[in-house]
């Protein structure tokens, strides 16, 4: 058994790193789907079509009212039972984080698009832009400033929430840490390492969000 903290870390590091990789992969994929889905949600919500808006509202409320944890259970345990469809726990976590994140990013994108002057849309249309071109060249780039800070903040929430994946059996970074503690009883050291891990992943993001928010405040 390792006698010093340093030796202990050396032995446990690969295990911790594997866990960290799981956490980062789930988070990165979740963030990716949350962003793509969120932009789609925001654009759809801006079309002003009633049935579409009702569907999006139901989707949003489902993810606001039901905890992410329950969604994880529903997808992981519920899909096989009700639809005979079983998804690996890693992808269950990505799916749930992506869908939850997309609803939240989507609300941000929707708000940012709605804050643009109506005339931007009409000016774009009047030079013959298609709907895609209008959003791609005119509306989304202008909404970007307003939507980026809150979206980055949401990314940190996705990263932190990804640890719930442990409950459907993913050995992410916290689970890996707990396994090491069970073996070595070095809880202070390991939890310290976990703290640093989350801090160094999330802090740069929230700092960036604050910097951007300040820089873009008056443009």
């Amino acid at each position, binding site marked *: 058994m390792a006698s010093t903290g340093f030796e202990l870390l050396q032995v446990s590091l690969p295990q911790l790193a594997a866990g960290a990789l799981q956490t980062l992969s789930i988070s990165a994929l979740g963030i990716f789907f949350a962003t793509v889905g969120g932009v789609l949600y925001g654009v759809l919500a801006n079309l002003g079509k009633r049935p579409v808006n009702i569907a999006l509202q139901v989707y949003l409320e489902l993810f606001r009212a039901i905890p992410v944890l329950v969604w994880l259970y529903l997808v992981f345990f519920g899909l096989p039972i009700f639809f005979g469809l079983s998804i690996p726990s890693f992808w269950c976590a990505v799916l749930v984080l992506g869908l939850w994140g997309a609803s939240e990013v989507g609300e941000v994108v929707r708000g940012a698009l709605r804050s643009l*002057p109506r*005339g*931007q849309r*009409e*000016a*774009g*249309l*009047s*030079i*013959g*832009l*298609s709907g895609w*071109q209008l959003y791609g*060249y*005119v509306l989304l*780039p*202008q909404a970007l400033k307003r939507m980026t800070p809150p979206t980055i903040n949401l990314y940190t929430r996705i990263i932190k929430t990804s640890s719930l994946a442990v409950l459907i059996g993913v050995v992410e970074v916290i689970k890996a840490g707990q396994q090491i503690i069970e073996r070595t009883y070095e809880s202070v050291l390991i939890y310290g390492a976990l703290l640093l891990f989350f801090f160094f992943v999330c802090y740069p993001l929230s700092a960036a969000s604050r910097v951007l928010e300040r820089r873009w405040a008056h443009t």
Partner: protein
Amino acid sequence: MSALIEFQGFNKFFGEQQVLEQIDLQVQAGEVVVILGPSGCGKSTLLRCLNGLEQAHSGSLRLDGKELLAPGTDWRQVRQRVGMVFQSYHLFGHMSVLDNLLLGPLKVQKRERGEAQAQAEALLARVGLLDKRDVFPRQLSGGQQQRIAIVRSLCMNPEVMLFDEVTAALDPEMVKEVLQVIQGLAREGMTLLIVTHEMAFARAVADRIVFMEAGRILEQNPPERFFTQPQSARAQQFLEKFSFVESLPKTLHKELS
């Protein structure tokens, strides 16, 4: 010769409210038509229907003989032929002046960059703003932004231009520079539909005045006739209000308008 633009029995509703009622209006190629009328009478709506920003309810609207209210109209095509300039310019704030001008020609018309840029620069020079090519809209005055907005439409090589109170948001000293640009287009023989509250300009530039009230066209006449002998009582009242405002001392004039 058949008209370039032809409204016939044209109707438009917003919900229950009818904002355009049995509009009959023909505009020949090269003609300059100024639309006058009290606030809320449907002038903007009429222009917006012409490039598909509003949907018509019934009737007929032809461009160059082709029915636009038929299903399957390619409004993107129509909008390239019918340019529109708005009261508050609506330049794209995240793009330089040049990028504002080139967006349509490059992305919609898929033209070659060198050729489109040469045209954009020539038009900028013409409105006296070539030195502003690389600045952003927020660095420009209202009058400069509005001239850029006109050039943005012109870069699409439209056949018709619609101007909806394009000087209404401007400080008085900038009105002239914008009106001169429009007058230049009129002299060149471009087809123009203009909504304005600048009566002297209307009188000088128009081939024909169309007077509207409550969604209907009450009279259409050459400017001299309209301004000196308006046919309808409503047009008389409308003009009296304007001459009253214009005869006021300058300070009061500002407060009223």
